[in-house]
């Protein structure tokens, strides 16, 4: 039974997806408790102290993935974006340009991009698709299963296309080496302020489609400033996956992760 939520990603029509049971999202409403019926404590009841992190299990699995990847000399990069940021094109170009340099494998969690898995395969990468169902993010267990199926060779680069939204994926560690947020200049300059959790959790921001800058109202420097206001150490690269502009900087950044 999925709960339809209004998602705070503001990205055009046709991308409504349902949120099942995540307790995230939606506008922040007041803090008061609703006048819920408080049940009388059962006589002879007992208080059990748990004091544990909600995501403890996911963190444990993520740590396992991280250790395995490190042991294989594999770098996994968790790539997160809103729909329409140009992730698939960026991935295709990256895979092509890595031919002969380093094997690339792709974990495909984005329902939208699933349709493009064939494009990824044609570009020369192995791909595994993860069905997240009504879920709005990948988790460490899905990542573990995907890695088992993919069986990436030692030293390879694993690019993880997370589900296309900028809220939920920020909360779930997959065991990746680094986290990248991709936005395009067709989105708002204030994107980092609308999705502060995502930008706070990122290691790198890629601003894509800079070839379109003359035609849109987007200020790269101002966007960088916003992103650093929630994450002072954040690296920001401006690229066009279509023309290839700036892609070298992205490849250099990947090389630094090894």
């Amino acid at each position, binding site marked *: 039974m999925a709960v339809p939520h209004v998602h705070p990603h503001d990205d055009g029509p046709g991308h409504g997806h349902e949120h099942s*049971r995540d307790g995230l999202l939606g*506008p922040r409403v007041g803090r008061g*408790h609703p006048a819920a019926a*408080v049940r009388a404590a059962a006589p002879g*009841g007992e*208080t059990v102290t748990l004091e544990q992190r909600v995501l403890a299990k996911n963190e444990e699995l993520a740590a396992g993935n991280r250790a395995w990847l490190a042991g294989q000399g594999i770098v996994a990069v968790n790539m997160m974006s809103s729909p329409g940021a140009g992730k698939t094109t960026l991935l295709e170009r990256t895979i092509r340009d890595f031919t002969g340099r380093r094997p690339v494998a792709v974990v495909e969690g984005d329902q939208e991009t699933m349709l493009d898995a064939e494009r990824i395969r044609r570009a020369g990468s192995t791909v595994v698709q993860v069905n997240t169902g009504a879920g709005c993010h990948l988790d460490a267990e899905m990542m573990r299963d995907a890695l088992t199926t993919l069986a990436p060779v030692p030293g390879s680069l694993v690019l993880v296309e997370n589900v296309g939204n900028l809220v939920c994926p920020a909360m779930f560690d997959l065991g990746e080496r680094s986290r990248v947020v991709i936005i395009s200049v067709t989105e708002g300059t204030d994107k980092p302020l609308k999705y*502060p959790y995502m930008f*706070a959790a990122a290691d790198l921001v890629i601003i894509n489609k800079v070839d379109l800058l003359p035609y849109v109202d987007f200020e790269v420097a101002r966007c960088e400033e916003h992103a*650093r206001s929630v994450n002072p150490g954040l690296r920001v690269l401006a690229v066009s996956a279509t023309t290839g502009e700036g892609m070298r900087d992205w490849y250099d950044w990947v090389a630094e992760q090894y």
Partner: protein
Amino acid sequence: MSITQSIVDAVCERAAGRPVHTVRVRVGELTAVVADSLRFCFDLTTEGTVAAGAVLDIEQPPGAGRCRACSQDFTLTDLVLLCPCGSADVEITSGRELEIVSMRVG
């Protein structure tokens, strides 16, 4: 696994078959989790489990930070890390909690 599912799984595991009446969680104001959505999802996720009908009690520690430049403690209402002194070298000291505190069973 979603946030709510994680809570319900942990609670049901520890309850070991006993009915759960109240679950207390700590969700900082500087997390992306919205209390009302969490409560709503909790009611649905607990259906058919020993925690069905349990009340979800949510503590919400407010955001707070400490400046590494001037050692000042101050309130953070969002993730923009800026001390009143102008420094952005700020450590978040409260508001990022996402924990299961306790539950009432039996």
